[in-house]
């Protein structure tokens, strides 16, 4: 089965998206993590653009522009500003055992591909498997949230999770209704602002952005 070149390109972008999530999973430095996040956004915008071009859906151009604006420019800029203000620009996070995390990641990818296999078989050609990749990047971002111990990196993981979802929304289903996409984008933006507020509150209270300090509330 021969699929058009543009959609092959979307497939390639999807794979690169997955690769970036893996890179984020293994990235120790906060600064590089944010840059990776910006790259992820750029890939997302590009793939949305290609899908918009091939399916001739005009509202997807807006989505692509929105993604470019929000996830490649505004959010990374906000995060950069934030880590400069919080003076954690060069922070390095100690990660637990990267190979184990990677193996867990591979297991998650297999799991989500398996889950998505019946879906990709029934959809006609063009977006085969993209749901699986989107699901895999969502689950990998979840794994990243679990393994991270710093507030900022958890937030980057959260945003990357959102990116995976956005990829599913724009590429795999070829665009949700614009009003929904706008709503999602607004929520993400507001969430980032609130996260920013939180960082300052947390640091003021705990003198650190390490969330290991925040494990007091437990049922004993």
């Amino acid at each position, binding site marked *: *089965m021969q699929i058009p070149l543009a959609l092959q390109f979307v*497939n390639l972008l999807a794979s690169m998206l997955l690769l970036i999530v893996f890179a984020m999973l*293994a990235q120790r430095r906060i600064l590089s993590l944010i840059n990776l996040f910006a790259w992820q956004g750029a890939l997302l915008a590009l793939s949305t653009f290609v899908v918009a071009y091939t399916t001739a859906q005009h509202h997807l151009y807006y989505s692509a522009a929105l993604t470019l604006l929000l996830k490649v420019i505004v959010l990374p800029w906000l995060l950069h500003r934030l880590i400069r203000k919080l003076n954690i620009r060069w922070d390095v996070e100690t990660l637990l055992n990267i*190979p184990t995390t990677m193996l867990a990641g591979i297991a998650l990818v297999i799991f989500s591909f398996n889950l998505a296999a019946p879906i990709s078989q029934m959809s006609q050609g063009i977006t085969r498997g993209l749901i*699986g990749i989107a699901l895999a990047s969502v689950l990998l971002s979840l794994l990243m949230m679990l393994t991270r111990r710093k507030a900022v990196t958890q937030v980057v993981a959260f945003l990357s999770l959102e990116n995976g979802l956005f990829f599913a929304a724009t590429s795999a289903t070829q665009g949700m209704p614009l009003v929904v996409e706008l709503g999602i984008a607004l929520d993400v933006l507001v969430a980032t602002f609130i996260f920013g507020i939180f960082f300052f509150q947390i640091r003021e209270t705990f003198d650190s952005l390490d969330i290991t300090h925040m494990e007091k509330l437990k049922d004993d």
Partner: protein
Amino acid sequence: MNNPHLILAVLFQLTQLLLVVLAAPMLTGWVNQCQAWLQNRSGAGLLQPYRVLNKLFHKDAVIADNASWLFRITPYIVFACMWLAAAIIPILAVDLPFSQAADVIALVGVFALARMFIALAAMDIGTSFGSMGARREMLVSFLAEPALLMVFFTASMISHSTQLPGIVEALAHHQFVLYPSLAFAGLAFVIVLLAENARIPVDNPSTHLELTMIHEAMILEYSARHLALIEWASSLKLFAYISIGIALFLPYGIAEMGNWAGLPAAIVLLVGKLALAGAALALLETVSAKMRIFRAPEFLGTAFLLAVLGLLIHFLLGA
């Protein structure tokens, strides 16, 4: 296959064998020359490896008193293995008679055989450097080999064949298709190539610093013609790896069976690709720093991860 065809094929095969064994040191020289240029040095020239080989062949070999026969035959075996590997890989043309004999898995086995002998020989003398080098070499290859196999599997899945000619045939003669899985496999292959050929960032071929060396530590006891053979084998190995890379990821323009007219074009294209690949390798080595040996497993783990991801993506996307 009728007789004239067979003769033609054998002729092709012999041309390739001769060409490879003669051209391999030149490729090493080219990589070194590029590196020199990138580092603002004038460099020793393309022919320097030949001069070194010439010099070594004219020297008298010194062998440790306690060296066994294993130590003596290893250079020949290693050289033979690498030459055989170069014979299997479709470098100039697709339908070579030798390449029917072994598929990609056997190719990995040939490399492993050479490695086993060289590691045994390194331990044979009983010096601490030899053992250390052998141990490190094994650590690296133990991680690189599965990744390499995964890369081959991905390519095999796409082309439905484990024979290198079959893979190349399938990839070169289809209409252009973007294979995300091959892109992953390609990245993984580059990492494996760096590790297996003792290049930066895993190893540094031009240093004898005891803390860092891997490959050089193993061949420290060799001299003269033995050393020359091993060096030549290393060049052949690099040539073979780069050729595999070209065959898997850039096969376009390879000559078809019996197409004498296509041969010159294929040679010119091949030289161009090799030159490009060598320059890229030099660039890669220049911009990256040698990593600590303890980080090597992580680096190679990345290769494995990439290769597995490529395979998985092939299953999911079918591309």
